[in-house]
């Protein structure tokens, strides 16, 4: 079979994705990444694509509570597992403490790295409610930011940790 014909009949599979607490039935090609499915099929465009090769962290989401780069994960491989994106972390009571702290501490500039950065920070705080500064730095070491120089991001994460503990 010629390549063109082979591509003409594009195999898809139907999978169930659990995103931000909602179940979605989606038809995906085996080669589609979780990032592509989130952005293009579920229209959850808060998750960003900065490199497509797992180097920048802009596409970070939570998979069963762990921060992962969604550009490196095939959607079919995470059927049924729990996925949280930036759209899913504000509760009914308003913003997540990390979101509020990022606003208050000037940790947001262009904002392109922000969703991924916040999710990496969330994974960190969920695991370590009292992180040291070094642990905060390590927690976001996979998330590049060119605008802020990280200083205010680290301050914001530490402030959010404090705010969460005070709750």
């Amino acid at each position, binding site marked *: 079979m010629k*390549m*063109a014909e082979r*591509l*003409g009949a594009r195999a898809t599979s139907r999978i169930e994705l659990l995103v931000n607490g909602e179940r979605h039935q989606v038809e995906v*090609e085996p*080669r*589609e990444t979780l990032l*592509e499915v989130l*952005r293009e099929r579920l*229209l*959850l*465009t*808060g*998750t*960003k*694509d*900065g*490199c*497509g*090769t797992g*180097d*920048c962290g*802009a596409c970070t989401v939570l998979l069963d509570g762990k921060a992962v780069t969604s550009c490196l994960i095939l959607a079919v491989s995470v059927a049924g597992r729990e996925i949280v*994106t*930036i*759209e899913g972390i*504000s509760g009914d009571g308003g*913003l997540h403490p*990390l*979101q*509020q702290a*990022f*606003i208050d*501490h*000037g940790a*947001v*500039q*262009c*904002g*392109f*790295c*922000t*969703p991924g950065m*916040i999710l990496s920070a969330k994974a960190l705080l969920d695991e370590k409610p009292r992180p040291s500064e070094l642990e905060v*730095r*390590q927690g976001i*070491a*996979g*998330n*590049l*930011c*060119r*605008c*802020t*120089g*990280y*200083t*205010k*991001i*680290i301050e914001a994460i530490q402030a959010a940790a404090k705010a969460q503990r005070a709750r």
Partner: protein
Amino acid sequence: MRRQNLRVVGKPLPRVDAGDKVTGKSVFVADVSLPGMLHAKLVRCPDSHARIVRIDLSRAEKLPGVKATITGKDLPTRRDCSTMAVEVVRYAGQPVAAVAADDPRIAEEAARLVRVEYEVLPAVVDPMEALKPGAPVVWPDGKRQKDHRGELLPPNVTGYSHFVHGDVERGFKESDFIFEDTFVTQTVHQGYLETHGYIAEADRATGKITLWTSTQSQFNLRGALLGMFRLAASRLRVVGLSIGGGFGGKSEVTMEPVCIVLAQKTGRPVKLILTREEDMTACTARGKQVIELKTGVKKDGRLVARRARIVGDGGAYGYASLMTVLVHGPYRIPNQESEGLNVATHTVAAGAHRAPGAPQALFACESQMDIIAGKLGMDAVEIRRKNLVNEGDFVAGALKMPRNGWRKALEEAADKSGWAQRKRRRNRGMGIACGPWDGATNISSAYVILDSDGTASVISGAVDVSGTDTSFAQITAETLGIRMEDVTVSLGDTDSTPYVDGSWGSRVTYAMGTVVKRAAEQVRKQVLGLAAKQLGEKAEDLEIVEGTIKSRKRPGKKMQLRELAQQALWEGGPLTGQASLSSLPSQPALAVQVAEVEVDRETGAVAVLKLTNAQDVGYAINPMSVEGQMEGAALTGMGYGLMEEYVYEEGPAAGWRLLNPSFLDYRLPTSLDMPEIESVIVEEPTDTGPFGVKGVGEPPVIPTAAAIANAIEDAVGVRIKELPITRERVLRAMQDAERDG
């Protein structure tokens, strides 16, 4: 100096767009989808220099879902340009064809099915190599350049500039010492996290084109495309969106024409989002420069004369930022001469990157200042103190230095870093460097509208790349006496707003802030005029505080701005202000940085422990934003100093390829690389900026590399004159020093 009577301006308030950004609601170009939209993909040549023998699109066109294919011949230019080659490829990664298909995966597959036959040609990827006789010539039919003496320059020199002030030869004769050094910088990417992206739509009935894109300048982009497509301004609408970083890299035409032509061909909207590799290979970069400095000084450290020669890599289609004036630094040098050579190579186009040309020029200038101080046995702060320009001195191209906070910035940097008290510790060192920047002003315009409920909106065509919308909101709120949250700032497109120049040159809060303030003042004047009639008071006795208009003389006399705005609708109509300007006086800024480093003698690794960054900002409308600019710039400067570099390798045939077009192999500083950064805001308000501001975003990226190089010398006694200062370079320099002992 803070002004106590201001309510909104001068406060560290959160950015107006922060809420949308932390929730993922901000709309970047990749987030936009239009009905019937197609997806484009580029076909690119891997080699630096090649003749296109044949392009076979047939297999791609047969793939189901492919709607159009184009080659360079379909672009209106019909000749080789940075966007697409027609006959000859001149940089690795240059597009030669493109496809549009129903979805991005089909487009990618189709691009792979395009067969291109190349004849690979000898290439030159280094500007110094390109100057040598017999080097491959990038533009064989180009016009030959002559220098200021009228002598013919090598064929790869595609631009030349010369600057002279005083008499350099006489200056050298009067000097006690002459220093001659050569400094080499590297090619780097701007490093914005959002790659370039575009969506074009062409209306077949009217011919009108709409382009949604991530740009720092809707209008400059439109201007360039109008020329290319021979369109009237009304036939091309450019819509800017949230921008995921630009740093100068989103100032010029990149792949927009590809999208537009595909949209014209298909009648459907076409989206093209570049991959990181495409972005790093085929847009613009800060090009390599080689800077020779010959400087004459008196025994007491006074600079007498300097001759500079800057060889800048312009890439195949770009232009090097040759800072022939700024290379003389923030200093009084009575005799200055410099020449700049723009050299074409088979590499990515050189373009703007945060303070274009200045980090290169000041790496040279400020490294040599320490070499001079070392030889004279002078303190590095003292020699700068001695030569720093004063108000009224000649600086930066015949500009008379206005009142400034430069000296204070120098003293603060020294003071806050503990310069004078520093103790000698093994393998530790401190270095200081200055970063002057004259700052752009440029064409600006804005509207301020008072809404019927007493809230206000600001509308302009200036894309917010650095928090400027927040400054506009603060300026407007302050001027109208309302809360910042009652001001909305909107980016209009090229159809809905008057022309403004791009968001670059650290100009926006200074120049755009000026028109916003003037427009808000017009509204305020109308408000007070109407209120004066209503209250039976003189307008000059009225003030607006938190939305209430009241008399300063008779406290009982007051009314709500809300009421007045409502009444105004029936008494002359809505209250609006509009202001425009073409330029303002330049207000040069200065960032002074002290780097503290520790060098590992075993590996040559340099750890930057602290950067103290003092900057004359005129006046900080939003100190939190200003600090954010300073911190981010300093870390970018550190990446430039120690880590980042485009690495080229000779390819399988005669060509050269870029080895590291990814964030894995081209490393930006991470949170683990970040030093402690102390930002010291120095305020000496200008006479011309709103509330006394001057440009902020670019100066703090300028001095970092030199400050680090100077600190390394202080730590381990080796002088590195080539960027980036890798472990290998440090180790080799230490070994050489030991051997020469």
